[in-house]
């Protein structure tokens, strides 16, 4: 085993990159900057980025909650529009109304399943308690949409709510005696 060869000397551009630039000459320094260029720009940006970190954590929580409330309330805005659409589409069984009812059910059910996912980004240890109320409202609103769908399905006659829907499970009453008829 021979010892490894020493590494080759770094190229010139690496050396230039690593060593700081020599101070510009006086003459060069006197050259004015091109219009629009600010040699201090980079510093200012750094200052601005530092600003939010400086804010208090309570404020962010309030903001998050406010945002969460907005998301929770948003589906309720669909309710009047959906109600009008459902009312208008009629109770007949057609592909259009069936699809509309399907969409009406699909939205809230997906929303309910993904409740936690929707509010996950607002969830911090400090907001968790307060988010419960928001989630409850969100669920209620989705349930309201579902209720609209159920009302529609009922109006279309698809819910087994009447006696006739259970008629097939009722059986004929049988006599204990049997009569035979021998008429001419």
């Amino acid at each position: 085993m021979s010892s490894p060869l020493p590494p080759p000397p770094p190229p010139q551009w690496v050396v230039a990159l690593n060593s700081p630039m020599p101070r510009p000459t006086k003459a060069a320094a006197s050259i004015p900057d091109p219009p629009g260029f600010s040699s201090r720009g980079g510093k200012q940006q750094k200052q601005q980025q530092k600003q939010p970190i400086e804010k208090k954590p309570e404020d962010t929580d309030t903001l998050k909650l406010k945002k969460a409330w907005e998301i929770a309330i948003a589906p309720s805005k669909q309710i009047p529009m959906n109600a009008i659409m459902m009312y208008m589409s009629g109770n007949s069984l057609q592909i259009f109304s069936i699809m509309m009812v399907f969409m009406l059910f699909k939205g809230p059910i997906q929303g309910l399943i993904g409740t936690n996912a929707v509010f996950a980004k607002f969830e911090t240890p400090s907001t968790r308690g307060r988010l419960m109320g928001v989630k409850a409202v969100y669920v209620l609103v989705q349930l309201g949409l579902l209720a609209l769908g159920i009302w529609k399905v009922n109006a279309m006659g698809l819910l087994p709510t009447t006696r006739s829907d259970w008629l097939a499970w009722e059986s004929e009453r049988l006599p204990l005696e049997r009569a035979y008829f021998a008429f001419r």
Partner: protein
Amino acid sequence: MRLQAALFVAACVSPAAAIYRDEVNHIDFHHALLGAPSPDSTFFLKPSSASNASLLYTISDKSILGAVNPRDGAVLWRQNLSRAGSPAGAGILRGSDGNNAVVGAAGQYISSWTAQDGKLIWENQFLDGVVADLELLELEEAGATSGTRDTLALISGEGTGAVRRLDGASGEIKWEHKDESGDVAFQVSSSPTEVFYISLQSALLKGYKIKVTALDLVTGRQTRQYTLNSENDIPTPESVLFVGANVASPLIAWADKTHKTIKVNVIGTKQVQTINIENTSDHEIRQITIHAPHKLNSLPHFLVHYVTDNGAWADVYHVDLKSSAVSKAYQLPYIQGQSVVATSSIDANVYFTRITDSEAVIVSSASHGILGRWNVETSSEAAFSAISEVIAKGKNVAVRAAVLREAGAWELIRNGQTEWTRHEALIDAVAATWVEAEVQENLVHELEVEGHESMVGAYLHRVKRHARDLQYLPEWLKELPQRILSSILTDEVTNLDSFGVSKPVIVATKSGRVYALNTGKQGSVMWNTQVEKTSEWDVKSIVTRPGEVTVYIGDGSSVTVNVSTGEVISRSVPTDVKLQAILSLENQETIGIKEDGSLTGAFADAAAFLVTTSADGHVLGWSGRDSKSPVWEFVPPSGQKVISATSRPAHDPVASIGKVLGNRSVLYKYLNLNLALVTAVNEKDHTAGFYLLDGVSGNVLYAANQAGVDPSQPIASVMTENWFAYSFFGDVVDESSAKGYQLVVSELYESSAPNDRGPLDAAGNYSAVDSLPLPHVISQAFVIPEPISQMAVTQTRQGITTRQLLCALPESNSIVGIPRPVLDPRRPVDRDATTAEAEEGLFRYAPFLEFDGKWYLTHSRDVSGIKTVLSEPTLLESTSLIFAFGGDIFGTRATPSQAFDVLGKSFSKLQLVLTVVACAVGVTFLAPMARKKQVNLLWKAN
């Protein structure tokens, strides 16, 4: 639910529930029957002088006059000459070539019909007696309109006789000759110049003398009269063998009692010639018949046919016109077996056609040379008469002969080939039933065996059965390509035979015959058997068991017949008790019901009840515990008598126990298997009562009384599921009542309120003895255009299909199937239906129910004399088989909710197959191309 309702409405109200043109003769069949033809009044006739085509004309024992196409045996037209109230008499029919009319007589009526299309020319009624004989005058008088021949009619009354000459065009009497000497008016005969009236004068001691009265043709005045001393030979009028009509020398012939000699008198002369019969066979002569041509210009030759018990021969005689001497020309030899002879003439030549068991032979009357000889298929039925038509083409002759057989069948034999057979005895059908085809029977039997074995045993049995079935595999494979091909090419999309739509029907007739008809093949006769030699076979019921049918007769006897061959398997002896009905229970036990309603024996099932009707118009209920005295008796009130009673059919499945209303609540049906609908009539005060009885307790559940009912008109009733219908002729009794034929429909419900199952509510079963709630009945009446003689209801396998009320209409000779939704008694009265009601399929009530043309199951057919309509479910829920009999035979398939489970005719299998093939070809071509393209795409991407 609404979807169902929508489909339901579409199914019932759809206007297309009619029979299409291409379904005629495919799903239905019709035997237009005439009855057994009368041999003397059956003949070939050319209806128009312009054409050489001839038709077969006959009048039957039912007095139905008909013209039959000799080519295919189809009835071209028929007319029923029998009139209610007219004394019955044998039907007589006469016609002559070139005359455009045939003249028929039955009882007191004589009528003339156009020969070509059967339209009435004139009709005449003679109140002084029945028509005994008819002749058409051959010679046309100068000045008479061509094509019409005058008719000579002989009317035989009580001790009087009258000869009348009727005008051929109008039927008016031209002259009449009355004979009030008390002789039996026998026959009338004519020669070119004279009319001979032949009567039988009672001799002093016994027998009859033949009296011949010659009348002037034009005036009808008596010219001379003579009597032949024949009293020793003629004890009854039937003993006269022959009275020749319309030959140049008409004959009277009779034989002595011992069949040793025949005596012949040429009418117009007084001499009687005696012909000795040379009987060379060892057997006694059973029957002598004389055959002579009926045409005026034919040679005066005649043939005497002798029949013994096992053979027959014939002699041909010539009559000398000048001397009136009769001489024997030649003999047709003695041939074993049956033999019939028919006469036909072309111009002056006379031909005799002799049809025996094995051959048909034509000879000319002039010489014994055989002009034509053909082999004939042997028939098991004895022939008793034949008529023939000979066509001579140069030296060759062709013959077609209609042979009348004792079975009431007649067949046309053309040059030895049987062209068609008409089974006229079917007109007397009194009972019928469906049977399973043999293949199905075997399977049913095997399945039964499996059902009774243990699980392992049944499994082994099944494996064995399938192994046995493997022997049919090569055959099945061989047939497969042909089956596929034929199923693509045939008219019907699916061969429905395996779905039970072509079940055989077993028919029993009054004449003691049993027929098997194949409903899948236009009702063709598969076999027929003379089971009993009788003319009044009192069939009560036909019961089927696997492989056999048993016919029960009113005298207590029964005959069991093999379903596939018609052989009699067993008979039981008659009892001395006359029965009015026979009940066959599920355990193959039978109970006879006597005339007074009592039972012939006890029945084993103690929990069962039996309901019968008695001759004095009561309904009796019997219990299995005591078969001596009835448990209950129903006597209709106010002097009414029970005339008929019906119950729900044995197979009456109920698809839904409630009726769903428009608001989706449920009206529960009142379903009781033990219901009987009893029709009682008081003939004096013209009331009719319809009583709904419970067969177990005898309780009257519902009663409807109708005033002003005409009891002489047909009253029909039917019951099924939870509804019943009846029809009658009602007269006006008060301001609100309607006059006309009425049809009343009633539905039974548990309660008037929806969603209410009545007092028993959801109980699983109930005893009619303890508690039986009354039904809530909703009724509606309709005025219908014509009477209904018989009602039935279509039956389907599960009762899901809407039912049709099948009505036999005797006045329009048809069967109509009224859709049940039309007869819904919940139809709104005096207002339009609300949306909810419209969803149920209800529409506004209209008191007059006109039969829609689409409802007629018989469409344009003339199905006359129907007495019974039967319905049978098939394996297809949509389809019900219908069979009607009693006069004509008619069978069809009814699809009240359309054939929803069968591919329609517009479905093209060929198109489907071609599409699949095209797709497959496309895929095989495109798949490599697509694969290549995809691979190329991958290369290009990198």
